[in-house]
């Protein structure tokens, strides 16, 4: 038997491969979104899929986020598995009615008589110079809604596996993809595989502090951890991967070991995922293990600015993570 083939793919190639494999395996899976056909998607994620699968399965929609999201919900209720692409996650604000009032609640409101097997993809985050209406990180909004699942894969391997898991899932799964990750390369097995929804992963083991990060912040936290390591600080970096349902155990176990917690995320700091991670620790037995105040590094209390210096300043960067973790370890907080 041949060994499983693994090769290097970009994050966006890994998504495209997951979409193709899902369509190969299940004729009810189809894609819809704005300019995902011959244009290949605003970020070239769907690429040439329309030529391989045809316009019926790679459907361009009009620019009508609310209506098209509703069409996806209806198709999901009637036996299809739509994978819906928002061109930018910001545009999902136009479709919140269908996501929040319909997709998330239909199963519950109908007493469990029907499920909504819908996947939505959200190109998210700042760093592209696209300014305030094309750069937001809105995942915490949707993670606040029971009935939805919300994932933020941070590597090519995870995005393929989590997208396939999302398409298998009978309930609506919202997949947030950071735009700066699309060109990131990593090892991806050629065969279909699943990465479970609801499980965080320890990306780097350490003893000094637990850094719980999401999406692109996982990579900044890992960079920061390497720098801190030269100073004798060994950070444990946890990639949360799923916001809802959140993996409490991995967070609690890590903090019990390290005695310190930092949360690093791009969404606006206040009322964001960091507050939830902090509360998980303070509400659990891990509270007794805390040796220092909890550190939250999140997005600024401002829209994402256009100016590149301001844009960088609006979200946590590696040097900020290094400086603030160092301060915490040295008791300067």
């Amino acid at each position, binding site marked *: 038997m041949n060994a499983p083939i693994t090769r290097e793919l970009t994050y966006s190639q890994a998504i495209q491969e997951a979409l193709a494999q899902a369509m190969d395996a299940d004729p009810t899976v189809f894609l819809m979104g704005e300019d995902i056909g011959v244009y290949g998607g605003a970020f070239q994620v769907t690429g040439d899929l329309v030529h391989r699968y045809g316009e019926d399965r790679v459907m361009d*929609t*009009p620019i009508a986020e609310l209506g*098209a999201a509703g069409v996806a*919900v*209806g198709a999901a209720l*009637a036996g*299809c598995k739509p994978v819906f692409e928002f061109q930018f996650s910001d545009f999902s604000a136009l479709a919140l009615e269908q996501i929040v009032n*319909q997709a998330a609640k239909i199963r519950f*409101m109908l*007493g469990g008589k029907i499920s909504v097997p819908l996947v939505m993809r959200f190109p998210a985050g700042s760093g592209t110079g696209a300014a305030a209406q094309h750069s937001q990180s809105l995942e915490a909004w949707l993670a606040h809604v029971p009935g939805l699942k919300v994932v933020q894969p941070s590597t090519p391997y995870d995005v393929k596996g989590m997208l396939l898991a999302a398409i298998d899932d009978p309930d609506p799964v919202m997949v947030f993809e950071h735009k700066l990750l699309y060109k990131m390369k990593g090892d991806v097995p050629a065969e279909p595989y699943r990465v479970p929804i609801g499980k965080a992963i320890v990306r780097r083991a350490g003893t000094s502090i637990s850094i719980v990060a999401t999406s692109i912040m996982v990579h900044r936290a890992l960079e920061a951890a390497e720098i801190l390591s030269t100073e004798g600080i060994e950070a444990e970096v946890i990639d949360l991967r799923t916001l809802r349902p959140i993996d409490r155990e991995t967070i609690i176990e890590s903090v019990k070991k390290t005695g310190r917690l930092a949360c690093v995320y791009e969404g606006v700091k206040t009322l964001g995922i960091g507050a939830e991670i902090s509360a998980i620790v303070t509400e659990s037995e891990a509270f007794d293990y805390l040796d220092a105040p909890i550190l939250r590094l999140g997005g600024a209390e401002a829209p994402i600015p256009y100016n590149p210096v301001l844009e960088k300043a609006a979200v946590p960067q590696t040097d900020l993570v290094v400086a603030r973790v160092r301060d915490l370890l040295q008791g300067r907080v």
Partner: protein
Amino acid sequence: MNMTARREADATNERPFYRQFQPEALKEALRRMYLIRRFEEGAEDSYMRGLIHGTMHLSIGQEASAVGSCMHLGKTDYITSTHRGHGHCIAKGADPKLMFAEFFGKEEGYCRGRGGSMHIADVESGNLGANGIVAGGIPIAVGAALAIKKQKRDDVAVSFFGDGASNEGAFHEALNMAAIWKLPVVFVCENNKYGMSVSTERSMAVEHVADRAAGYRMPGIIVDGNRIEDVSEAVMEATARARAGEGPSLIECKTYRIRGHSKSDRNRYRTKEEIEEWAAKDPIRHFELELIARRLLTESDVDTIRAAAEQEIAEAIDFARNGTDPSPDEVTRDVYTIGPWA
């Protein structure tokens, strides 16, 4: 008169509605109209007596559009409905017992008591649900129609909505997509003249909802929504067109809700005279008289149908009152399908 001669006479003089449906189907339609009327009167009475809580939106006076539309639908055809959806649910074949159980918040209800009046659905009969969001069901019906087309089925989706919904963006986006993709969907607007308290004159730039069909290059048909024959014939044509792959249609049923918008309505925006004028055009009485004139029914048959509906509703209320209350331990039940958090 010999049978051949009679059929010829029918073919030349009789309306398509009465030619299309057998007498039994016509009687069944009248029975369902009565069931809807009695269901809503029973719901209102239960509310007044404090047996059920929340609010409700009654469609008394609008029974013809619900029943007339659903006469053309089978179990595998879909409907999406509205906050004023009891009529659509019964017209599509739901059991009033299970509807009342839902109203009473019981486990035996269609939605295990989790949905209530505004979310009653009967998925098995193809009813994808009432909806608390105005226009929320319209794009969902278009999505169901897209699925039908993908699955190469012969079915249609019918979306019920009110005049108020036609001012929502979702309506316009949904009609546009249905038209460009030629989907098997029929948009049935029940124009009862008011979106809550605001009249169509004050809220719509066009006189008729059907005028909006032109913007999406589909037929826009106006019918007397209180005459079941008019509704049914328009829906017959629209469903045939949809099933033939010729795309969507918009049908506007001009009608009126005799009751207020909901239980908070104090009728400050309309006159008693207007309400009485419409009450005189009662769709049930109209249909009865048409059936009697055709000798398909006698007044005494009508009394029997009405009494049977009253009896069925009384039994349904008893069934619901004796239902099981959900356990507080199960508050998160059915939020998800699988997993430890399901």
